[in-house]
C-alpha cells in the first residue's frame, strides 16, 4: 500500500465516549470490568414493543451554549456531552492553539444526525396544510452537516468539516477520512469519530426488517441470538501525527475499507467484504494477522452478521486470536459504533482486557473463531476493530499501544 509509510501511525491524543453507561470513558471501563451492561427496557414513547435500548442518561437536560442554541437537537446534545467529557474539549482547544484553527479538521460520522428533532416537528405540523413549525431549523438539526458544523463552531475551528454517512461504518470511516486529510498535509490534526442518537425512524426501521431482539438485551455470538438492541452514543478522538502526540497516547496503526457489492442489507455470506477491509487495515499498519491480540467484533447480535463475521475472522485469524462484541454493554450505536469501539479498543489495550460477550454463556457452537464469552486478562499490544453496514460498507481500524 503506497500510503503506509507516510500515513501511519497516528496518535489518538485524546479520546472520549458517551454511552448508555454514562458520559466519559470511566463508567464504560468500570462496566466492562464488572460485566454490567447499560441496556434497559425502552422507555421512550411510540417505539416498537418489547425492545431494549441503550439510552444515555440525562441527555435531554444538556444545554448548548446560547450562541449555538439553534443547533439544539438530541444528536448535538450528545456531541456536547462528549466534548465536555474526559477533558476532550481542553485537549482539542490546546491542539487548535498549537496548530492554528484552520489547520484542524472535524470529520464525523452519523446515520441520522438530528432527525429526532424533525420527528418532534412532525408532531407540531400545521393541521391545515401540514407545514412544519416555523421554529424548526432543518440545516442546524436534521441535516447531516449539522453535526460537524456544531462541533467545529463549538471548538472555534476553521479547518474543513466533513460528515461521513455510510450507515453503521460511519464512525470508523470518519476516522479513516480524517487520517487521509492529515496524511495529505491539508491539516495537522482532526477531531474524528461519530455521534448517533435514538430516534423513531431508526428503531421502527430496524423493527420493520425484523432485526431487533425483544424482551431482553442483545446477545452477540450466542447460539440463540435473535437481533440487535439499538443504543445511542458518541465517540470522539483527537488525531495528530504520532510524533506530535503525547508519549503515552494509544496509536491508530492503520485503517482499511471495502464494499461488499453484494446486497443492500444482507452481508456477503462468506464475509468477503469484511475480510477485504480487515486485510486492508492490516496492510496499512504493515502487520500480519498474528500481530493482532484481540478483535473487537462488529457483533450486532443478528443471525446473519455474527455468522458472517465469524467466518471472516476465522478466515484471517483462525482460532488463535480472541474476539468479542461489546454491543451487549452499549447496544448498537450505528454511525457512532465504530468510533466508540475504537475507544474501547484503546481502553482494552491499556487494561489488558478482553471483554467477553455479555449475556452469552456459550458462544454459538457453529462458530469457529475464538469467541470470548467471559472476561479474560492478557497483555494486549494491538486490537483490530470491525464495523459493517447497510449498503455493503465495511471498515476496520487497528489500534495499538504506544511504541507497539
Amino acid at each position, binding site marked *: 500500500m503506497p500510503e503506509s509509510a507516510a500515513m501511519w501511525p497516528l496518535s489518538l491524543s485524546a479520546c472520549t465516549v458517551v454511552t448508555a453507561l454514562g458520559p466519559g470513558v470511566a463508567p464504560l471501563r468500570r462496566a466492562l470490568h464488572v460485566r454490567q451492561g447499560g441496556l434497559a427496557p425502552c422507555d421512550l414513547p411510540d417505539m416498537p414493543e418489547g425492545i431494549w435500548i441503550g439510552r444515555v442518561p440525562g441527555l435531554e437536560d444538556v444545554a448548548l451554549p446560547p450562541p449555538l442554541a439553534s443547533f439544539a437537537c438530541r444528536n448535538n446534545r450528545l456531541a456536547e456531552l462528549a466534548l465536555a467529557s474526559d477533558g476532550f474539549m481542553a485537549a482539542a482547544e490546546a491542539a487548535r492553539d498549537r496548530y492554528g484553527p484552520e489547520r484542524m479538521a472535524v470529520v464525523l460520522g452519523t446515520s441520522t444526525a438530528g432527525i429526532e428533532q424533525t420527528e418532534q416537528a412532525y408532531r407540531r405540523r400545521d393541521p391545515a396544510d401540514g407545514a412544519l413549525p416555523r421554529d424548526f431549523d432543518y440545516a442546524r438539526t436534521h441535516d447531516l452537516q449539522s453535526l460537524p458544523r456544531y462541533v467545529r463552531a463549538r471548538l472555534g475551528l476553521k*479547518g474543513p468539516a466533513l460528515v461521513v454517512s455510510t450507515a453503521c461504518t460511519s464512525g470508523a470511516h470518519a476516522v479513516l477520512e480524517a487520517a487521509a486529510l492529515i496524511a495529505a498535509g491539508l491539516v495537522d490534526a482532526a477531531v474524528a469519530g461519530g455521534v448517533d442518537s435514538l430516534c423513531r425512524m431508526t428503531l421502527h426501521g430496524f423493527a*420493520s426488517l425484523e432485526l431487533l431482539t425483544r424482551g431482553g438485551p442483545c446477545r452477540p455470538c450466542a447460539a440463540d441470538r435473535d437481533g440487535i438492541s439499538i443504543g445511542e452514543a458518541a465517540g470522539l478522538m483527537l488525531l495528530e501525527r504520532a510524533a506530535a502526540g503525547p508519549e503515552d497516547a494509544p496509536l491508530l496503526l492503520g485503517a482499511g*475499507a471495502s464494499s461488499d457489492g453484494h446486497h*443492500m442489507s444482507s452481508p456477503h455470506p462468506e464475509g468477503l467484504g469484511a475480510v*477485504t477491509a480487515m486485510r486492508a487495515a492490516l496492510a496499512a499498519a504493515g502487520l500480519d494477522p498474528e500481530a493482532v491480540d484481540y478483535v473487537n467484533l462488529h457483533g450486532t447480535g443478528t443471525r446473519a452478521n455474527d455468522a458472517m463475521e465469524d467466518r471472516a475472522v476465522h478466515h484471517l485469524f483462525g482460532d488463535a486470536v480472541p474476539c468479542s462484541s461489546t454491543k451487549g454493554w452499549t447496544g448498537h450505536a450505528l454511525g457512532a459504533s465504530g468510533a466508540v469501539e475504537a475507544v474501547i479498543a484503546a481502553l482494552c489495550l491499556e487494561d489488558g482486557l478482553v471483554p467477553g460477550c455479555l449475556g452469552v454463556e456459550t458462544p454459538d457452537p457453529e462458530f469457529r473463531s475464538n469467541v470470548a464469552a467471559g472476561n479474560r486478562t492478557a497483555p494486549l499490544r494491538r486490537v483490530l476493530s470491525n464495523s459493517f453496514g*447497510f449498503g455493503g460498507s465495511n471498515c476496520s481500524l487497528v489500534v495499538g499501544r504506544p511504541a507497539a
Partner: protein
Amino acid sequence: MRCWIGSVAVIGPGLPGWAASEAVLAGGSPWTRTEVTLPPPALLPPTERRRTSPTVRLALAAAAEATAEEADRAALETVFASSNGDGVIVGSILDALHDPAGVTVSPTQFHNSVHNAPAGYWHIGVSSTAPSVSLGGYDGSFAAGLLTAVTTVAVRGRAVLLCAYDVPMSSPLAAVRPTGAAFAAAFVLRPEPGSVSGSSLRAALELRYRAVPAPEAPPTDALDALAVENPAARALPLLRALAARRAAVLHVPLLEDAHLELRVAPC
C-alpha cells in the same frame, strides 16, 4: 493537492448527459431548461432496477456515464456526495411514523433510506469491492466530495470516481430545504498521468483549502444561476471550464466561512 480529471458526466435540467451538453456548457449553444429524465439503471438486475428511487437512478446514471470508457470500473474507489440523500424516502418514512392509523415502515424503504444507498447500488451493479465513502455537506456537499476524492487520489495513489447528486425533497421537508431540479455531476479523478495508459485526461486540477468565504460571484447567465438551486450543481463552474477546455481559477464554497480554490489547466 493535485490530480487529473479524466471522464466527466452531468445530468440536470437541459443537461442530458455530458456528450449532449458539452457545447452548451462550453457556451457554444444556448441553454434551455427542460425536464430531467432519469432512466432505470441498466447496471442492476431487472428486479432491483424497477424498485430504484429517483435519487439512485440519478446517481447511477451520472456514475455510469463518467465511467463508460473505463477498462475496469470495479477497480475505482468511490466518493458519493449529497446534501439531501434520499430525501423523498426519508420524508415518506417520517410520514409513516406519524400516520394516525398506525406505524408501518416499509423495510425496503428503510434500507434504501441510508445515505450510502446509491453507493451500495453502484458497487452491487459493477461488482466492486473497492472502498467507498458517502458524504453529506449541506450546500457544500459537492466541495466536500471533491476535497475527499482529491485527498484519496493524493494519499492512496488510486483512481477515484466522484459522484455528487441531489434530488428535491417532498412536502413538508421541501419547504424547509428547497432544492431545484435534480442535478448530478460525476468525475473520474486520477493520480499521475503516467500511471494510466490509453485513457483521456481532460485537465490537471490543483486544490487548496481556504479558510475564508468564497468571493461573491453573481451568476452571469441563466445556466450559472442553476448552481444555487441544487448543491450538486455547485459543480457547474468546474463543468463549464472543462467543457470549454479553458484554464480557470474557481472558488467552490465548502462552509459559510471556507471554500476550495481550484486551479484547472486543460491537458
